[in-house]
């Protein structure tokens, strides 16, 4: 028996703080880029960029993903969330761990605070994973989405463990392979194994639902699942054994898997019944177009062609910014408009259905502000990327300023949704 979306939903007090805190972290990151544009025009292993990246990946991306998953897992697994207390504990440890970690990186202070932050983050992830696994154990439902979610969690745990190892290695060097290579592995296992795989698991369910697309070829998802995971495993082993050829081969395997997922999304897009895209889906579309560009960039990076080798720093930073800001952050911003209004709407109006005319979830935020946010984002991202490519700090700062404006507008809408009060018109 399948249930309605709201039937197993957890308390909004578990879900909503993740969106609010996440949006605030995103605002801080964009402000830091405006204030310190030079961190994007030098080698990626610099303290400020490390701090900003972790604020973005943990503070915004992982934070919102955790919150959204607490709402979506009961829909996908058709079971109530195992524990709301664990979820709140995970929220506290993730927030404090991210702040302490970013502070330590920013000041290059590799001391007890760094270890403590790594411990908090590991604890947060373990609490989250236990919650999801326990919910999954109760669920008899077997589907590809569930497989992606559970596997992505294993990669998240692995990502944090590598992070802890690297933290230890900074103070007591013991790793025999280059710290930079382990950093690349840490980043990719996190971005591909955890974030992207989760996006595939959740997106393959939600995006066809939002576009009302049916009869999709789910084999494409299975192909994506196996290729991405085989690629990641081969890549991880090859990094530790320092076999460059297999590292590159694993990248190609992962890219083919990702293309299979993109083909599924394209199929959903072209078969959609709902032709007109709302603002959330427009930003989602832009996110996916940016993702295709980032795949192209990674091919240039591994091609080792001398012209691209000579601009390797710009190419690497461009690739990471395309992936983290252009694709993942943009996707999260777009999908916030598809999920958060509904969560608040359910909280405010669930017991008031039929008691008068009530607003729709889409009416909980300003569509004009959301449109301005999207335009600012596109403009800001475009200028930022030019700045990174030509290594011009003024240009990076200008682009980041537009991004900051965009994220301010995003925050305005987030808080407008969260603070929405019941408005019922006469029957």
């Amino acid at each position, binding site marked *: *028996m*399948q*249930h*309605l*979306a*709201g039937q197993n939903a957890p308390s909004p007090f578990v879900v909503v703080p993740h969106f609010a805190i996440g949006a605030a972290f995103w605002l801080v990151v964009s402000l830091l880029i405006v204030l310190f544009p030079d961190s994007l025009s030098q080698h990626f292993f610099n303290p400020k960029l490390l701090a900003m990246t972790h604020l973005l990946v943990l503070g915004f991306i992982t934070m919102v993903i955790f919150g959204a998953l607490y709402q979506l897992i009961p*829909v*996908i697994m058709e079971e109530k969330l195992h524990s709301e207390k664990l979820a709140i504990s995970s929220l506290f440890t993730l927030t404090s761990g991210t702040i302490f970690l970013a502070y330590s990186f920013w000041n290059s202070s590799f001391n007890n605070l760094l270890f403590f932050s790594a411990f908090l983050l590991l604890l947060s992830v373990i609490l989250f994973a236990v919650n999801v696994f326990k919910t999954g154990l109760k669920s008899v439902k077997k589907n590809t989405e569930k497989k992606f979610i559970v596997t992505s969690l294993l990669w998240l745990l692995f990502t944090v463990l590598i992070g802890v190892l690297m933290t230890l290695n900074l103070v007591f060097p013991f790793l025999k392979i280059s710290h930079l290579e382990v950093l690349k592995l840490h980043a990719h296992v996190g971005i591909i194994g955890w974030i992207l795989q989760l996006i595939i698991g959740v997106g393959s*369910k939600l995006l*066809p*639902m939002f576009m*009302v697309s*049916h*009869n999709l070829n789910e084999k494409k998802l299975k192909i994506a699942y196996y290729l991405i995971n085989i690629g990641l495993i081969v890549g991880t082993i090859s990094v530790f054994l320092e076999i460059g050829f297999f590292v590159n081969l694993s990248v190609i395997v992962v890219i083919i898997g990702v293309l299979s997922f993109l083909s599924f999304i394209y199929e959903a897009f072209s078969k959609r*019944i*709902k*032709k007109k895209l709302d603002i959330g889906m427009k930003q989602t579309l832009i996110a996916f177009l940016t993702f295709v560009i980032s795949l192209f960039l990674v091919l240039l990076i591994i091609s080792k062609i001398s012209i691209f080798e000579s601009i390797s720093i710009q190419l690497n930073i461009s690739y990471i910014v395309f992936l983290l800001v252009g694709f993942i952050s943009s996707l999260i911003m777009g999908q916030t408009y598809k999920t958060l209004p*509904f969560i608040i709407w*359910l909280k405010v109006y*669930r017991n008031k*259905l*039929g008691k008068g005319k009530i607003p*729709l*979830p889409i009416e909980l935020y300003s569509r004009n502000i959301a449109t301005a946010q999207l335009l600012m984002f596109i403009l800001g991202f475009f200028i930022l990327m030019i700045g990174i490519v030509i290594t011009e700090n003024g240009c990076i700062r200008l682009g980041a300023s537009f991004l900051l404006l965009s994220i301010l507008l995003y925050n305005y809408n987030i808080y407008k949704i969260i603070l929405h009060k019941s408005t019922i018109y006469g029957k």
Partner: protein
Amino acid sequence: MNSEEATVFELLKGVIDPELMVNIIDLGLIYDVKIIKSKIDIDLTLTSAGCPMGEMIIEDVKQLVESNYPSFEVNVNLVWSPVWTLACLTENGKTALGQG
């Protein structure tokens, strides 16, 4: 479907899917309407499991029928078989969604 059941069926054109902005009859979401004595049973599906606006649609159906048949007991049954597909759309539904 007898004439009274057909009237209820027509009445349900007044319920609009808030995501697609098309009425639920032209979307083909109503599978059956049965009136037995003073009880009205309506079988309704959604375009996808987990459809966020499901509760609102179900409540709208219940409210609309109850207000037109105050002396009847109205039951709205959410059904998932057969699964809703594009083939469930009426001609009007296809036109409204640009599928025609």
